C-alpha cells in the first residue's frame, strides 16, 4: 500500500525522531557532581551517600567528599545523608553541580528510642532507659550479644554462668534481683517478639534497656526484671551495602590456682597421715587446658529502594574452648524484609534461624562424690603424684585417698556430652495507616526451639564401670505463638499539646515438651548415645508437656505539652492460664512525668546547659513466676515395688491453691538528664526503689497434711539504688576525636518479709561435702547471704579451747563464740558474707586519629564477696592443696592463719569467704581503616583491620581463679539465692583477636 516514496519518507521520519529522541534523552541523562561537606568543619565527608529519591540509583562520596551521580529522569530529587548528620533533599532541576553542607546531628535527643510497642524521641522519654549502640556491641568478637552488654549500661549486671565455656548461658539482671523463687532474668524482646533469645551481635542495630516501671509496665506481668529491647538491622533505601567481616582469636586461661607439686604434696600428706609418693609429677591444670581458638565470620547484604528494604545476614561462629574436648559451632541466618505495598500499607518479615553444636565437658557439678567430679574441680583435687595412666593402661583414679574419682584428663576426654540447639523464629507484621493520625499494626510470630543433649559415660570411667556404660538422650522443645495488635493515635489536640494514645491486645501461647530415654549395659563404648537399644538395662524413660497462654490488653497515653511538660500513663492487664483460679488476671499500671527544663525560655538559648530534664515515675510490674499447672492439685506417679515387680502407684503431691497471686514489684524512679556545652557532656542519674510483694515461697506445711510444702505468697523484698551515666565527647577535631562513657550503679537488696518471718536456710554446697546449710534468707538481710561459723585463727599452744570447738589441739581451727554463751554450737553460726556488690561500673574510651581508631574499655565490680567451695575442698586433706599449706601451722611456725595439716570436715566458715572486687581491662582494640582512594580503587567502600584483646588484665585480691563466678546459679530460685559461689567452674579466658571488616 505504501508507495515507494512514502516508504522512504517514513524511514527518514523514524530516523530523525530517533536521533532527536536520543539527543533529548542524552540531554536528560546528565551527570551531576558536587561536594558533600560537614557544616561543622567544612571538610568533605568521605563515604557520604547520595541517591535519587524513589530509585536505587546512587553513589558514595570519595575521600574528599566529591560525588558523581547520573540523573536520568525529570524532576529528580537527590537525597544526601550520612551517619550522624541530618539528611538533606535537593531537587536537581537543571543544575549539574550541587554542593551540600550537612549539619551534624548533635541533638542526639532527636534520636529515636525503641520502647515497648513504638518509638519515642529521646527528649520525650519519661522513663529510665539506657541505650547501647551497634558499635559498642561489635567492639570485640562474641558469641552472643548478652555478654556485650556487660558494663555498658548503668544498673545492668551481666555475668557468664560458667566462665569462658563455649556456649555458656549469660545472666542479665537489671537493678538487682526482684524475686527469690522466680526467675530474675530480664525479658528479652527482639523486634517486638517477647521472650526469645538474642541474635548475633553483628545483626543488632541497637539495644535499649528499659529499667523503671514507666518503661516496663507496658510488658505488665513480665516486666519486673527489666526489659531488653533489641532491634536488628534493617535495610535502608539506596545503594546496596555488602559487608563481610572475619576475625580469629586465640584464647588462654587467664588464671590458674597455685597447687602443690608431687614432692610438696607427698610432704604435705606425710605430715598428717601415711602416704607413699606416686611415680609421676603432673600439673593437672596444664594437662586439661590448651590454647582456645575462635573464628567468627559474617556476610550481610542490605539495601532497598523507596518501597522495599532488606537486610540479609549469615554468621558462622566456631570456638574451641580452653579446656580440652570442649567447643562450639554456630550458624545463624537473619533476614529482615520490609515492603511498602502502598504509601499507607506496610508489611514486613523478620526471620531468624540458628543452629548450634556444642561439645561440652562436665563442670560445676552439684556433687563430686564417687565417680561424679567435673573436669575442672578434679584438676584441682587430683593428686599430682599420679599420671594419667596406670601401668596396665587404665586411667588413674584417686583411690585409695578420699572419694574415688577419675583423673581430669579421663573425665574430659572420655565423657561425651553433646548438645544441638536449633532456633527458628519468624515474625510477620503489617502496618496500616487508617487516617493521618491513626495507625494500626498487627504482628504474628512463631518460634520453635529444639534442643537435643546426648550423654554417654563409658565403662572406662568409674561411674560407668560396674554398669557397663550409660547412655542417655534428652530432647526439649519450646514453641511459641504470639500475635499483637494495636492502634496508635497521634495528634496535636490543643495548641502545642501532642497526644499519643496506644491501645492493643496480645495473645501468646507457649508450649514446652520434653522426652528422655537412657540405658546401660553396653558391649562396647563405640556406640556412644546413638544406639540406646543396644543396652541391656533400660532406665525409666520420661516425657512431658506443659502449655501456657497469656492474654493481654495494654494501653499507653502520652501527652507532651510544648515539648516541655511530659506525661505518660501505661496500663496492662494480663491474664495467664498458669495463674490460680481466683486470680487469673492482674493489672499493672504506671505513671510518669517529665519536665524538659532546657526547653523553657530561661534555658532555651543557654550556651552551657543544652539539655536538662527531670523525670519521675511510679508503677507496678509483675513476674511470671508461677509455672504451668502449679496451682492445681495433682496425683503423681511414684515408684512402688510389689512382689518384686514395679507396679503403678500414685500419690497426691500438691494441693489446689485457688488464691495464688503474681509477684508484683512496685517501683519508683527519679531521674535527671543533663547535657552541657551542646551535649558534649551528657549525664544521666537515677534513684530508684522497688518493693516486691507477694513473693512466692514453698512454704513448708505441717507434716500431718501429708504434703511437704505449698507455694504461697508470703514474702517481700526491697531493692533500692542509684545509677549514674556520663557520656563526654572530650575532643572533636579534624584528625583526632576522643569520647568517653562512664557508668556506675549501686543496688542494695534486702529481704522485708518471709513466711512467718522465720529464717530459711539454703544449702548450695556440693553434695559430697555433706553440709546442711550454706546460705540464709533472713529478714533485714540481702538475698544470698552466706551463713556459717566465724573463723578466728589457729589454736596456739597453751590456749584455752572453747567447749564444743571441733578441734581441741594446737594447730586446729578456732571458731568464734558469736552469741557469747561460752560454748560453740549451731547457735554461733551467723552471716559471714554478702555476695551482692556495693557497686558495678564500666568505663569506655573511644579514640580516633585519622584512619586509626582505638577503644579501651574497663569494667568492674566492688564489694561483692565470694564463698569458694574449691578452696574449701582443697583444704580438707584428702586431695591436693593450694600452696597456702606450705605456711601451715607447726610448733615452729605459729604466726599463721593456716591451721596445721590434717584431714578435716568441709565446713562453711568465714575462712573461705573472700572479697570478689575487681577491675578488669575488658577490651582494648586498635583498628585501621584504609584510605578512601585505595579502597574505592578496589571497588569497596570501607576496609578496616583491627587487633584487640579481651580480659587482658584484671586487678583483684580474689585468690580463686576468677571473681566472675556463678556456681549453681541456673534455675529459678537458685539464680537468686546462689550468688557469689565458686566450685569447679570453667575458667575465664584472655583473648587476642585479629580481624577485618569489608564494606562494598
Amino acid at each position, binding site marked *: 500500500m505504501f508507495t515507494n516514496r512514502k516508504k522512504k519518507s517514513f524511514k527518514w521520519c523514524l530516523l530523525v525522531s530517533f536521533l532527536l529522541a536520543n539527543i533529548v534523552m542524552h540531554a536528560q541523562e546528565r551527570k551531576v557532581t558536587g561536594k558533600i561537606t560537614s557544616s561543622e568543619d567544612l571538610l568533605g565527608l568521605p563515604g557520604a551517600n547520595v541517591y535519587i529519591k524513589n530509585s536505587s540509583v546512587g553513589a558514595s562520596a570519595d575521600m574528599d567528599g566529591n560525588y558523581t551521580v547520573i540523573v536520568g529522569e525529570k524532576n529528580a530529587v537527590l537525597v544526601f545523608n550520612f551517619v550522624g548528620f541530618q539528611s538533606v533533599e535537593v531537587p536537581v532541576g537543571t543544575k549539574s553541580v550541587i554542593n551540600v553542607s550537612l549539619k551534624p546531628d548533635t541533638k542526639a535527643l532527636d534520636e529515636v528510642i525503641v520502647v515497648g510497642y513504638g518509638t519515642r524521641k529521646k527528649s520525650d522519654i519519661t522513663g529510665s532507659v539506657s541505650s547501647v549502640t551497634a558499635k559498642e556491641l561489635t567492639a570485640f568478637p562474641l558469641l552472643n550479644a548478652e555478654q556485650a552488654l556487660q558494663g555498658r549500661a548503668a544498673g545492668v549486671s551481666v555475668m557468664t554462668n560458667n566462665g569462658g565455656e563455649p556456649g555458656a548461658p549469660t545472666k542479665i539482671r537489671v537493678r538487682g534481683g526482684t524475686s527469690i523463687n522466680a526467675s530474675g532474668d530480664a525479658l528479652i524482646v527482639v523486634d517486638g517478639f517477647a521472650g526469645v533469645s538474642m541474635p548475633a551481635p553483628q545483626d543488632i542495630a541497637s539495644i535499649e534497656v528499659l529499667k523503671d516501671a514507666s518503661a516496663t509496665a507496658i510488658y505488665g506481668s513480665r516486666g519486673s526484671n527489666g526489659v531488653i529491647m533489641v532491634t536488628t538491622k534493617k535495610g535502608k533505601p539506596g545503594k546496596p551495602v555488602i559487608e563481610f567481616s572475619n576475625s580469629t582469636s586465640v584464647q588462654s586461661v587467664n588464671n590458674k590456682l597455685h597447687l602443690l607439686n608431687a614432692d610438696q604434696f607427698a610432704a604435705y600428706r606425710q605430715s598428717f597421715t601415711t602416704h607413699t609418693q606416686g611415680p609421676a609429677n603432673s600439673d593437672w591444670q596444664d594437662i586439661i587446658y590448651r590454647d582456645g581458638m575462635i573464628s567468627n565470620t559474617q556476610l550481610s547484604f542490605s539495601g532497598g529502594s523507596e518501597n522495599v528494604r532488606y537486610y540479609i545476614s549469615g554468621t558462622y561462629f566456631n570456638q574451641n574452648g580452653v579446656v580440652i574436648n570442649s567447643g562450639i559451632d554456630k550458624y545463624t541466618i537473619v533476614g529482615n524484609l520490609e515492603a511498602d505495598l*502502598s504509601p*499507607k*500499607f506496610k508489611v514486613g518479615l523478620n526471620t531468624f534461624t540458628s543452629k548450634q553444636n556444642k561439645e561440652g565437658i562436665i563442670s560445676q557439678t552439684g556433687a563430686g562424690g*564417687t565417680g561424679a567430679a567435673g573436669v575442672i574441680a578434679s584438676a584441682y583435687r587430683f593428686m599430682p603424684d599420679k599420671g594419667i595412666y596406670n601401668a596396665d593402661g587404665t586411667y588413674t583414679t584417686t583411690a585409695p585417698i578420699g572419694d574415688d574419682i577419675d583423673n581430669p584428663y579421663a573425665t574430659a576426654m572420655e565423657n561425651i556430652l553433646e548438645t544441638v540447639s536449633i532456633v527458628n523464629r519468624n515474625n510477620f507484621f*503489617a502496618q*496500616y495507616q*487508617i487516617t493521618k493520625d491513626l495507625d*494500626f499494626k*498487627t504482628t*504474628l510470630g512463631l518460634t520453635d526451639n529444639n534442643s537435643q543433649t546426648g550423654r554417654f559415660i563409658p565403662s572406662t570411667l568409674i561411674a560407668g564401670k560396674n554398669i557397663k556404660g550409660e547412655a542417655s538422650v534428652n530432647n526439649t522443645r519450646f514453641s511459641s505463638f504470639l*500475635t499483637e*495488635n494495636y492502634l496508635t493515635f497521634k495528634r496535636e489536640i490543643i495548641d502545642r499539646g501532642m497526644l499519643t494514645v496506644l491501645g492493643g*491486645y496480645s*495473645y501468646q*501461647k507457649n508450649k514446652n515438651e520434653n522426652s528422655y530415654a537412657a540405658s546401660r549395659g553396653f558391649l562396647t563404648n563405640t556406640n556412644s548415645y546413638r544406639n540406646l537399644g543396644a543396652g541391656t538395662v533400660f532406665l*525409666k524413660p520420661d*516425657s*512431658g*508437656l*506443659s502449655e*501456657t*497462654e497469656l*492474654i493481654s490488653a495494654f494501653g499507653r497515653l502520652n501527652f507532651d505539652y510544648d515539648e516541655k511538660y511530659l506525661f505518660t500513663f501505661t496500663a496492662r492487664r494480663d*491474664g*495467664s*492460664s498458669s495463674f490460680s483460679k481466683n486470680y*487469673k488476671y492482674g493489672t499493672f499500671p504506671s505513671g510518669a512525668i517529665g519536665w524538659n527544663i532546657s526547653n523553657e525560655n530561661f534555658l532555651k538559648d543557654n550556651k552551657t546547659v543544652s539539655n536538662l530534664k527531670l523525670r519521675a515515675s511510679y508503677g507496678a510490674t509483675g513476674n511470671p513466676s508461677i509455672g*504451668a*499447672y502449679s496451682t*492445681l*492439685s*495433682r*496425683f*503423681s*506417679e*511414684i*515408684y*512402688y*515395688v*510389689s*512382689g*518384686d515387680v*514395679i*507396679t*503403678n*502407684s*500414685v*500419690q*497426691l503431691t500438691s*494441693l*489446689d491453691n485457688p488464691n495464688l497471686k503474681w509477684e508484683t514489684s512496685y517501683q519508683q524512679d527519679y531521674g535527671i538528664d543533663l547535657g552541657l556545652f551542646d551535649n558534649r557532656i551528657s549525664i544521666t542519674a537515677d534513684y530508684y526503689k522497688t518493693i516486691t510483694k507477694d513473693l512466692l515461697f514453698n512454704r513448708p*506445711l*505441717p*507434716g*500431718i*497434711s*501429708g*504434703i*511437704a510444702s*505449698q507455694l504461697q505468697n508470703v514474702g517481700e523484698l526491697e531493692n533500692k539504688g542509684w545509677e549514674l551515666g556520663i557520656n563526654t565527647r572530650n575532643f572533636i577535631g579534624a584528625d583526632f576525636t576522643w569520647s568517653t562513657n562512664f557508668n556506675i550503679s549501686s543496688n542494695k537488696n534486702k529481704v522485708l518479709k518471709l513466711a512467718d518471718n522465720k529464717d530459711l536456710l539454703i544449702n548450695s554446697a556440693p553434695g559430697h561435702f555433706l553440709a546442711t546449710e550454706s546460705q540464709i534468707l533472713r529478714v533485714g538481710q540481702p538475698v544470698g547471704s552466706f551463713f556459717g561459723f566465724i573463723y578466728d585463727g589457729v589454736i596456739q599452744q597453751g590456749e584455752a579451747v572453747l567447749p564444743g570447738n571441733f578441734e581441741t589441739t594446737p594447730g586446729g581451727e578456732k571458731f568464734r563464740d558469736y552469741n557469747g554463751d561460752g560454748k560453740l554450737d549451731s547457735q554461733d553460726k551467723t552471716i559471714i558474707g554478702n555476695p551482692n556488690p556495693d557497686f558495678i561500673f564500666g568505663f569506655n574510651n573511644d579514640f580516633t586519629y585519622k584512619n586509626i581508631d582505638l577503644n579501651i574499655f574497663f569494667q568492674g565490680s566492688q564489694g561483692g564477696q565470694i564463698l569458694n567451695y574449691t578452696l574449701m575442698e582443697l583444704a580438707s586433706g584428702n586431695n591436693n592443696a593450694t600452696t597456702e599449706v606450705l605456711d601451715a601451722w607447726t610448733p615452729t611456725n605459729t604466726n599463721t592463719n593456716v591451721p596445721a595439716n590434717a584431714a578435716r570436715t568441709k565446713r562453711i566458715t568465714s575462712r573461705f569467704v573472700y572479697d570478689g572486687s575487681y577491675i578488669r581491662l575488658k577490651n582494648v582494640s586498635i583498628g585501621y581503616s584504609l584510605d578512601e582512594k585505595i579502597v574505592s580503587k578496589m571497588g569497596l567502600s570501607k576496609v578496616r583491620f583491627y587487633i584487640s584483646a579481651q580480659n587482658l588484665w584484671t586487678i583483684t585480691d580474689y585468690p580463686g581463679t576468677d571473681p566472675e563466678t556463678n556456681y549453681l546459679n541456673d534455675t529459678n530460685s537458685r539464680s537468686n539465692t546462689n550468688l557469689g559461689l565458686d566450685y569447679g567452674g570453667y575458667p575465664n579466658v584472655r583473648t587476642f583477636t585479629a580481624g577485618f571488616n569489608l564494606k562494598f
Partner: protein
Amino acid sequence: MKKYIALLCFGTLAFFSCSDLEEKPVGIIRPENFFNNTDDLQAAVNGAFANIGHNNYWGREFTIALMLRDDMSDIGDRTTQAARIDVNDMSMNDTNALVANFWPQSYVIITAANQAIEGAKKTPGDPAKVNAIVAQAYFARAFAYYHLVRLFGDIPYVDFVVNDVNQVNSLTKTKEADVYPKIIADLEFAKQWLDDKPKVKAVPGKGTAAGYLASVYLTLGNFQKAYDEAKFVITNEAKFGLGLDADFQDLFNATKTASLKEPLFTIDFNNLTSGNYGQDYTAFFTGSLKDDSYSYGQGFSVAVPSLKVFNTWDQRDYRRAVSFDTIIRKKTGPGGSLQVYPSSDNEKVPRPHIAKYFRFPGKAGANGRTSQHNYITMRYAEVLLTAAEALNEINPGTAEADGYVNRVRARARNKAGKQVSFPANVTPGLSQTDFRKMVIDERRLELAFEYIRWYDIKRLKIGPEVFGPNGLEPHANFDPNRDYLWPLPGTELAINPNLQPNNPGY
C-alpha cells in the same frame, strides 16, 4: 477497597484466639479426673504402700530408730549421725532428725490412704471388688497409725481428705485411748474385705489384718480378743497360705523371700530406686566395716548387737548363727584372696554384727544400699507366740499354748537341713509367771532385730529391767516417766501450737 480488605484481614488476626485461660494439663493426673475404675483405685492405694517403702520410713529413717531403741541393738560407730545416737542412748529431744523425717512420712502414708478411701466412694464397679481394694488402704492407715500411737502416745488423727491446709493447721491431738478404737475399726474393715490369699505378700490379706488385730489387742492388754484373732489366723493358716518356713535362714535371704509362706506382709525392695522411693539402707547400717566378704563392699557398722545379747544367747541355737556374723574377711591372702578373721579384728567396731540383712541382700548397691530384701513386718511365728502369750494370760497351763511355742522351736531345730536338739520343747506345766517370762524371751530371740522388741518392752513396761545395770543394754539415764514415749517434732508444734505440749519430759 484495598483499605477495607486490609482492615478485614487485621480484624480476623486480632480476634484470632479467645481463651478462657483454663489449664488442661496432659500427662498430669488431676484428682477430679481420677478414680474412673478399680485400676485407678488400686494405683491410689499403692501410693500408700509406696510411701512405706521409702527412705524416710521402712527404707531407713524409721527402722533404724526402731532397731536402735531396744535392748538388742546398740550403736557401733560412735561418729555416726547424732540423732541415731540420741535414739539409742535415751537422750532424744524434739529436734531429732530421724523423727523429723519419719513423722511427716507417716502422714504421707495416711494421706494417701485417705485419698484412696475417699476415691473409693466414687469408683464405679462391683462393690465387693472395690471394697477388696480399698480395704488395703484401711490396712495401710491402721499400720501407720499403729506405729505412731505406740511411739508417740497422743497424736493428731486425720481420717479425711485435706483440701485446704487450714483444716490441719488447728488440729488438736487425739488421746491415745481414742486412737486405738479407730485403728481397730480400720483393721476390722480390712479383715472383712481383704482377700484370703493375696497373690503376693506385699499385698495384705485377711490373715494380715487379723494378725495385726491380735497385736493391737495384745498391746492393749485385751488378751481374750488377742487370742481370738491369733487363733483365727492359726485355724485358717492353710486358707491364708501361711505357715512356718522350714529353714530359718531363708527368711532373711533376699533371693528366697518370694517363695516364703511365713510373711503376713512384706515391704518389697528390688535394687532400683526413684529418688527416695525404693531406697533401703538396713544392710548398709548393720553390715561390718572392714569386711570385704561381699562384692557390694563393706558395711558401715552403725547398728550392732549389744554385746550382752551375743554373749547370753545359747551357742547351740541355729537362730543365733543366722542372726549374727562373727567373722569378717579381708583381702590379705595371696593374689588378694579373702582370708577369714574374727569380727574383733575390725578395729573400728570390734564385735559381732547383725547378719540378717547384710548376709544375703540379693543384688545390692554400694556397701549394701538398695538391696533386694522384702522386709517382713509380721510373720507367722509372731502370731503363734502372740497366741501363746495371750492364752497364758487368760488360761495358764494349757498344752495348746505350749504347742504354739513348740512349733516355733521345732523349726529352729532345723539347722540348715540337719536336725539338732536345741532348743528343746517347752517344759509342760510351767506357772503363768514362768511361762510368760519364757514366751517373752522366745519372742526376743525369734524376732531379734525385726523391730518388735521395743514395742514389747514398752507394753510390758520392763524398761528399768532391760536397761538397768543387769539388763542386756544398760542405760543409766533410762527414765520410765519419759522414755517410753518419743518426742513429737518441735517444728510441728511450732507451726500448730494446738499440738502442744510435747510428751512429758521433752
